[in-house]
């Protein structure tokens, strides 16, 4: 499964678990508006570390704060490198 698909699947799953409704997951969707709150986002990063084997936010020397879903996916596609 591609990194992007893994991320989208996890986002949908966490939204379900937390009883949230996701906005349509387009490239330019602003993460702050995606429907997950900060806890949901934290859970997403932890789950992705489990399934993709990397937490690019902790691994990065500078804190990276992606704004859109497209940027978020890119951080993972280049994660740990």
């Amino acid at each position: 499964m591609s990194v992007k698909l893994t991320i989208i699947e996890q986002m949908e799953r966490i939204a379900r678990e937390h009883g949230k409704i996701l906005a349509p997951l387009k490239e330019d969707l602003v993460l702050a508006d995606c429907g997950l709150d900060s806890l949901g986002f934290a859970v997403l990063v932890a789950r992705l570390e489990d399934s993709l084997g990397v937490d690019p936010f902790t691994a990065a020397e500078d804190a990276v704060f992606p704004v859109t879903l497209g940027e978020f996916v890119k951080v993972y596609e280049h994660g740990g490198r």
Partner: protein
Amino acid sequence: MSMAGVEVPSLRAFVANARALAFLWDRGASVRFTDLARETSLGGRLAELSGRSVLLATTNQLSTALALIELDGIARRFVVLPPDVEADRLGAMIAAAEVNAAVIDEGTAAAPALALPVRVTCAGAIAPMKEALPARAATEWLLMTSGTTGAPKLAVHNLAALTAAIVAPSAADGAAVWGTFYDIRRYGGLQIFLRAVLGRASLVLSSAGEPVADHLARLAQYGVTHLSGTPSQWRRALMSPAIRGIAPRYVRLSGEIADQAILDALRAAFPRAVIGHAYASTEAGVAFDVNDGLAGFPAGYVGSVRDGVEMKVVDGSLRIRSPGAASRYAGGVAKLADADGFVDTGDIVELRGDRYYFAGRNGGIINIGGLKVHPEEVEAVINRHPSVRMSLVRRKQSPVTGSIVVAEVVLEPDRQPDGPRQSALKDDILKLCREALPRHKVPAAISFVPALNVAATGKLLRRQG
């Protein structure tokens, strides 16, 4: 509050009344209790320790047990040194307790702090005593606190306080063989040692570095009837096939929160045993035993006086006033009890229905976006899953996402799923958490680990992530 005035015979008087076939066993040696009434392990040097403040720096539990029996009522005070105490703590302990003598054994490492006026070697075996017993004196027992938070301190007890919660067994109980996963040089294990001595029973001790399976095999060999340990030690024992060799009639847990999962697992392993969990701390003493097989304790225990023990809850934290409490800390810096004589245990309790449940340690709290999470309450839920043997919940810090709750889980040995099913099992455990816990307490991630570390205190080793 003074604990003085209660006349308790010395330990040597108790062993004189032991059953003829009551023994102390460790891996390599055995000593018959009644022999200790007139024999000695101290090579004729007991009189030199009379009236002194003695550090018990023995390295194995059997020689410690012998020294305790010989020195109670002879030394002015002794400091029971647990295993694994860092050498650089010795100096401070010796100063706080005004130590001027040491009892060592062949395993005691040389340390500058042990260069004391009197040093006596405990042989770990006994020989007839040629000299007369020195005059009796009241002995203070100094025990190291578990130091769950902050540097460990020395709590000052005496035999009356240490045995306040011990009920003399009736003749109908028959000959008992006690065993303990706990080291007798710490409060929880010492309680078991004293129960064996006062109960005229035998005691099986573990030896340093002894594998759990070997210890269990020896417990089976000697027919253990009463066995005690922390929930973590019990979980580890339940993972050993050697557990099937023992059939204790009394199973005791203390030192950590006994959740329903471990109580049920022990019930399944030992269907006919009395399974009890006790609440005790080095400072407050033994506060109560719960024998109904349920986690937590009846709400009525708080606010009433039971066997001289009074409990109250202040800011969620359990406070205890008890004849079993220590009288003070040696060195006299910190206060052990409040103005009314209550010891604040730092253990947080929550009232649900007609029972109080332990929620965790005051100070062990994880803060998730301003909401409090006690790791223990999450672990209790995870441990309910039939595939789970034990778990550790901790905080994981991320610069971007803040703190989250993560769990490390040890699975039952016969329930190790292969790759694809691992993820389904994680989902299943998370589902259980979501059903039982508010959202912020549900672990963000679960990882399966082969084992969790248990500290020398028998408690799950917690670290900050």
